[in-house]
């Protein structure tokens, strides 16, 4: 289980992030990768971004994280222009950034050490985060001893540990099998509900986007721009299996599918 009920209340975020993209475009040399585009991510919402590959979905996340400067326009995070690494966000990608020489526990403690938390709190928070993702008992294991799914949980635990106001997720479950994926969806929804944090979730899986998000943004092909924003008015809390049987789910799927298909 990703999120155990008894533990989650403590991780509620006080100040979820609001993200504003204002006429943002990104060029890599001669390559016009993205934009100009404008988009507002509301504080505390679950926003999914879909689009053809190479349309700059990940670029949007990098802009929020501050690891990539926009070529034009600006990105504001909680009213403040992002101009360097944004430490308020937790960034989870398909890549696993575990340090192989550190145990699972020490990996989860890493951001807390960076942020100069007192030692007692570092230990307590890491232990709690690991329990939350269901990795209690694996504290002393090394990353190379874990499977891909477990490593992904370590990355999530590492992010949970410092309670970021915003979670940026770039196809985090891309490498997992369908069953595990569905389980992770349920757990992610629970995490979102319990923390109240803002989630920006990039995926190319429409099922995933509809299941999780409040709004789904469809991006056009390169240079990527927001092309369509669809409100997903499915009731919450959602059941990741039942929701797919909802007739409205199919309607959303069709709408999004057509929007993407025109891109070819």
């Amino acid at each position, binding site marked *: 289980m990703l999120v155990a009920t008894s533990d989650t209340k403590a991780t509620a975020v006080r100040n979820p992030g609001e993200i504003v993209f204002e006429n943002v475009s990104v060029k890599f040399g001669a390559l016009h990768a993205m934009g100009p585009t404008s988009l507002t991510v509301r504080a505390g919402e679950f926003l999914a971004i879909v689009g053809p590959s190479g349309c700059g979905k990940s670029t949007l996340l990098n802009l929020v994280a501050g*690891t990539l400067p926009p070529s034009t326009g600006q990105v504001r995070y909680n009213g403040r222009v992002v101009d360097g*690494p944004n430490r308020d966000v937790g960034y989870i990608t398909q890549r696993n950034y575990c340090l192989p*020489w550190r145990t699972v526990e020490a990996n989860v403690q890493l951001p807390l050490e*960076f942020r100069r938390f007192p030692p007692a709190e570092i230990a307590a928070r890491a232990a709690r985060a690991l329990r939350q993702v269901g*990795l209690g008992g694996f504290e002393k*294991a*090394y990353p*190379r001893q874990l*499977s891909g799914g477990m490593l992904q949980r370590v990355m999530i635990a590492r992010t949970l540990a410092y309670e970021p106001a915003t979670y940026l997720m770039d196809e985090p479950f891309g490498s997992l099998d369908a069953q595990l994926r569905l389980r992770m969806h349920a757990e992610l929804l629970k995490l979102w509900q319990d923390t109240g944090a803002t989630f920006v979730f990039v995926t190319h899986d429409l099922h995933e986007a509809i299941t999780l998000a409040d709004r789904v943004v469809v991006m056009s092909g390169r240079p990527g721009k927001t092309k369509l924003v669809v409100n997903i008015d499915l009731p919450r809390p959602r059941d990741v299996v039942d929701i797919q049987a909802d007739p409205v789910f199919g309607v959303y799927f069709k709408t999004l599918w057509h929007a993407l298909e025109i891109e070819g």
Partner: protein
Amino acid sequence: MTESAELQSSPRAGGVLEHAKRRGVLYIQILLLVALIAIWQGVADRFDTEFWTSSPLSILAALFQWYESGQLVTDLQLTLFEAGIGFVLGSIGGGVVGFVLGWVRKLGDIFEPFVLSIYTLPKIALAPLFVLWFGIGPLNKVMFSALLVFFMVFFTTFQGIRQVDLDLVANARLLGARRVDIWTKIAIPYSAVWVFTGLRISLPYALIGTIVGEFVAAQAGVGFRIKEATTYFNTAEVFAGLVVLMAISLLLLGVLSLIERRVMRWQTADTVSISDAAGTT
């Protein structure tokens, strides 16, 4: 716990088999060693090659005599001291310079040709110059060892630091890492494999530096003894010196790999014990 099924655990029986195989190899190695020594002795006795090749028994006698005279201990102490200090100085120097030039790319690019041109110089040729600069005492040998070690450790550290995954560094910045954190918690551990390789390769070079220094000019030390014995055509004593040198290099390498295994434990972590530990909690 269901997750233990996800662990890539290797069956325990495989480990036992591996162990037995390794023991078999050890037996063969010991046998081979004994055979070689026996052949050496036999050839020396039968074909009277003692003058050129000495013989294991004569070497043993020479070693014993060397020890009895009390010279062995003083020679060993001196040589080990010179090589040891040289090794430490050279490693620190090579490590620090390698780290800085590897990390600050611009500096590295500027200095690389300079370092390279000194590196390609056969450094043995510098030995006489070192006598001029540092005299014929221990300082000369220390500096010469340090020079040889410096380049080995410098290049591996430089390589290792340049291998550091920049995505990982960017990720660490997001996690809140400051500059110091990136160095101490990402870059240095990341390049540790390389640094240890450098240390392992350079350890014999520390000894080479000292021995060459002692060949050129000295008053004591294992290298000095070997050279002295050569001038008297005392082959047994020369070989005794070589045996001592071999023994100390092997010993030092053993110590180093012990340290390495401790520091790099994550590389050899046993998959089986972890799933067991998880099962009991």
